[in-house]
């Protein structure tokens, strides 16, 4: 199969899955007990006027599939409807809150990649007591939920030591970074542990392999053996975790942004959930699912570059 055909097939597959996901996200609303109009208005004043407005806005008198495809058409044009709670367009709501979340996720991603890879590398190569220490630390990291990490970091570094602000996003770029350091660490901690373990295991497997012994037997300097044969060959396994890392980062902003009162997408999702603002929940869900699939698609397309031995499409994501 040529690369172009493979890419097109994966793209179509992704579109199909995304369509399925959008159907789930849209259809979930109709699982609610009672009729959709009262669900959409739940907790809010259900005046006849409001009911009528909801009915026209959502075309609730139309058949289900008509409504679904109308909604899908709007979504494809970037229109996620109006927030019931905030009474503005959901797209605008998202756009306002996206920058702080993206910055937070980007900071956390850098931490995950740099620290996770480094710890896995060091553990695998050094071995001994260093490895055991890293293994214990990553075991604890993998067992620490992001909100627990958030509370603990906040309690120690903000309240007790006063090094960082306890909440908010701050003004200006530098201040924003300072406000987001602790949240980024909290967000990254679990994934650092996960990535370090995956990297370590993949590198240990390579270290154990015959071709590494052969490279050593031919006098290739140890640094080069590790870089060219051990790490290089471990990259494929490490790369498969990419989709999981990104989607976990985004979804966990719900917890971390709530803990640090950061006005981002995560906090919006939490507020939208508690106020049953369904259009907003739908939009954010679709965003997260779409992002996960895009990242996985990119990884699938990159994979043949990293590992020329696999046949195209043979890889199945571990996420």
């Amino acid at each position: 199969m040529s690369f172009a055909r493979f890419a097109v097939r994966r793209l179509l597959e992704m579109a199909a899955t995304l369509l399925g996901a959008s159907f789930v996200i849209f259809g979930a609303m109709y699982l609610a007990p009672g009729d959709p109009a009262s669900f959409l208005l739940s907790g809010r004043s259900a005046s006849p006027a409001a009911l009528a407005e909801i009915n026209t806005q959502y075309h609730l008198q139309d058949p289900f599939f008509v409504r679904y495809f109308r909604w899908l058409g709007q979504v494809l044009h970037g229109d996620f409807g109006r927030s019931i709670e905030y009474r503005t367009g959901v797209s605008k709501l998202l756009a306002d809150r996206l920058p702080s979340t993206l910055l937070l996720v980007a900071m956390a991603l850098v931490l995950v990649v740099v620290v996770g890879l480094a710890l896995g590398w060091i553990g695998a190569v050094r071995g001994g007591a260093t490895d055991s220490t890293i293994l214990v630390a990553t075991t604890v990291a993998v067992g620490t939920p992001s909100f627990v990490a958030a509370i603990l970091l906040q309690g120690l570094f903000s309240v007790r030591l006063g090094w960082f602000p306890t909440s908010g996003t701050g003004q200006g770029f530098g201040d924003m970074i300072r406000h987001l350091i602790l949240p980024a660490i909290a967000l990254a901690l679990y994934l650092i542990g996960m990535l370090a373990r995956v990297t370590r295991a993949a590198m240990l497997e390579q270290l154990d392999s015959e071709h590494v012994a052969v490279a050593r037997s031919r006098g290739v300097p140890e640094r080069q053996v590790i870089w060219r044969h051990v790490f290089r060959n471990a990259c494929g396994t490490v790369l498969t975790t990419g989709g999981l890392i990104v989607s976990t980062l985004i979804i966990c902003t719900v917890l971390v942004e709530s803990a640090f009162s950061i006005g981002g997408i995560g906090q919006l999702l939490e507020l939208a959930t508690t106020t049953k603002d369904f259009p907003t929940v739908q939009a954010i869900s679709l965003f997260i699912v779409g992002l996960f699939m895009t990242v996985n698609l990119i990884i699938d397309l990159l994979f043949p570059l990293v590992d020329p031995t696999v046949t195209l499409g043979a890889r199945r994501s571990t996420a």
Partner: protein
Amino acid sequence: MTTVLTRRPGLARLRAARQPLYLACLGFVVLVVLAALLAPWLAPGDPNTVDLGNVLAGPSADHLLGVDAAGRDTLSRLLLGARTSLIGPLGVVVFATLAGVAVGVAAGWRGGWLDSVLSRSTELVFAFPGMLLAILIVTVYGEGLLAPVLALAIAYLPYVSRLTRSLVLAERERPYVAAYQVQGHSSLQICLRHVIPNIAPVVLAQSTINFGYALIDLAGLSYLGLGVPALTPDWGRMVFDGQTAIQRGYPLSALLPCLVIVLTVVAFNVVGERWADQVARRDR
């Protein structure tokens, strides 16, 4: 560099295992489960009784682990919280394991269109992080334990079904399966009596690890106020309740549930991974 060693059968078993950590974790798992089972008898007081005179007090004879910001005894809440905090993940894991094994065996054994349909659905569910699916369902059904447990069970199902499917695919290639088929045993009989028992250890190890993750996800939902109802003692909820106290410089009532969550998750992970290792080593 153990290439020389691993090929020598006699030496494989000589590798030393990290026994103490595993035993400590197994001990902790047993301890937490016992605490949850015996909580009503072990708890020194009612978890919702308010002692306003001792708000945020440290450990004392009356309140061994102190009092939270609302004046409730932390030890009692931790013990009774163990029940809600463990029953949720248990529900997730039991449902995900049973349904996942059924789906995985069906897909692996039958193959064909059934396999394609199930694999497609698996891909779809994989696109939703467990937390997101739970949040989506909670938005629709409102808070409570059942909705998030079901949502997480669905989110975890593909992990079990995919594992089961690959194990079944390997298992059905083994000669004994053909031997039984030749003797006229039905597929259902072979699956129930031989295939499932043979793959059970691996699946159980995976489920034990999943338990830890389900606990993290459910505690997170409770922390957001989307899990158990507000007054029910629950570890995730206790972290939320303790957050204001920690910001005012009284860390104990938040620190303890944090600690218990981390230790429990770590313990389940270590035990599960150890079992998975043992099974892998046995099969080699």
